[in-house]
């Protein structure tokens, strides 16, 4: 049953939108990747989740889709879990797509899209998890226009801050940081991600249970 809900979100996001999304995808891919290397991949991942939550939320609010769904045997927890699953599905698809493109270009000896290293993957996973974890419950409570602004700030802000901090750190510090994180990055990333999703889910569920129509 959850598959149907994931199907719903994918359809709502991509319906009549595929070309536009593909265009945006390529835009970010090309412009960012050529200038900021692998950061393009991270931005894409966060971006697609942002687009997903934004698009689907506005379409659902327009249709008051929740009212119909809540009248069916679908449970609240299924509706919410499906959202997280869809977000991760999109993240993984983006990762695979990017890897695929990167491989293809590598094969034709064009170094345009750097490959995804483990570190980058885990950092991106963590960022996406935190991002989705924080904004998803917001969609249940707040107006879309506010969330648009808040979430854009979140992505760009994090990105800018991270980039600036990275540039400021001395080479020494970076090496030390990379040494330390290499050992624990994977573990940290996954556990914090899981924690973020769980907390986010609890908040979302509580919010949805209290909502009256």
């Amino acid at each position, binding site marked *: *049953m959850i*598959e*149907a*809900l994931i*199907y*719903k979100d994918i*359809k*709502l996001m991509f*319906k*009549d939108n595929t070309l536009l999304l593909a265009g945006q995808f390529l835009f970010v891919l090309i412009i960012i990747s050529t200038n900021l290397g692998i950061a393009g991949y991270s931005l894409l991942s966060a971006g697609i989740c942002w687009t997903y939550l934004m698009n689907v939320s506005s*379409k*659902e609010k*327009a*249709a*008051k*889709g929740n*009212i*119909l*769904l*809540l*009248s*069916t*045997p*679908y*449970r609240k927890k299924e509706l919410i879990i499906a959202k997280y699953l869809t977000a991760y599905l999109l993240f993984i698809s983006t990762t695979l797509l990017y890897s695929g493109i990167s491989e293809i270009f590598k094969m034709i000896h064009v170094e345009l899209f750097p490959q995804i290293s483990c570190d980058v993957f885990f950092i991106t996973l963590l960022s996406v998890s935190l991002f989705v974890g924080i904004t998803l419950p917001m969609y249940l409570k707040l107006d879309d226009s506010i969330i648009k602004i808040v979430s854009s700030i979140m992505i760009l802000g994090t990105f800018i801050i991270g980039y600036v901090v990275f540039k400021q750190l001395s080479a020494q510090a970076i090496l030390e940081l990379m040494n330390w994180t290499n050992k624990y990055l994977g573990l940290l990333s996954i556990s914090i991600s899981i924690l973020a999703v769980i907390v986010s889910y609890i908040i979302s569920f509580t919010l949805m249970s209290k909502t*009256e*129509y």
Partner: protein
Amino acid sequence: MEYLLEVDGLNKTFKGKKALDNVSFRIFEGCITGFIGVNGAGKTTTIKSILGLNFPDSGEIKIFGKCLKDNEKEIKDRIGIVFDNGYLYEDLSIEEMKKIIAPAYSRWDENVFRSYLERFNLEKKQKIKTLSKGMKMKCALALALSHHADLLIMDEPTSGLDPKIRKQLLEIIKEFVSEDGKSAFFSTHITNDLEKTADQIIMLDQGKILIDEDKDVLLEKHALVKGDKSLLTHDCRKLFVSLEEKGFGFEGLTNNRAAVRNSMKDIIMEKPLIEDIMIAYAGR
């Protein structure tokens, strides 16, 4: 006859106003129940309470003899629901909409769905946003009737529809309840639809139940009365639910036909329409 739906002592306050005031009623098996009242009377609020979409301050709701809270999934599996707007996703096609809704129900029947689409002249590839209001309602109805539901609940299904489509809809509702163990419950302020279709009439006004009766008993109890003003004695006035005096005559609705027949002579009595009754009772 079994009760398919029992509502007891429902109270709900919305923003300081009492939206539902001790609402209690029962829906029998095999019955078509018309839930009437002017806009804002609380009909939609009641239906949403029944579906667990809002939380009453107090009261009990039992569907198929079970509490909604503890058996939500099981109960909703047997309810077919049609909302005024359909609340369908505009961008999707009918087929895509079905792919979302169908898996929720354990008794979804694809053949039944297809046959309804055919009957309603709907193509599964059609986009919801291209459908007229009437077609949207039919689509919602097809979805509601394709999982062998036992209770059909509809909120203003006929509003904004032309008489021909309304007639079709009512025919289908009648078909639906002709099978054992089924009931239909729909709210409307177009009472004309109920004259030939409803078995039971429940009227809500400002959150309170004013009428809860077998349609025929209701219509036989009441009468439209016209006559000369001089006939209106103090006692006679008490027999009327609504009374309008114009010039030398009066016009009114009584809820005690027998008494009026006995105590007033030279009057004209007519069988009322449900609409006359609703208007007379509303906002009293």
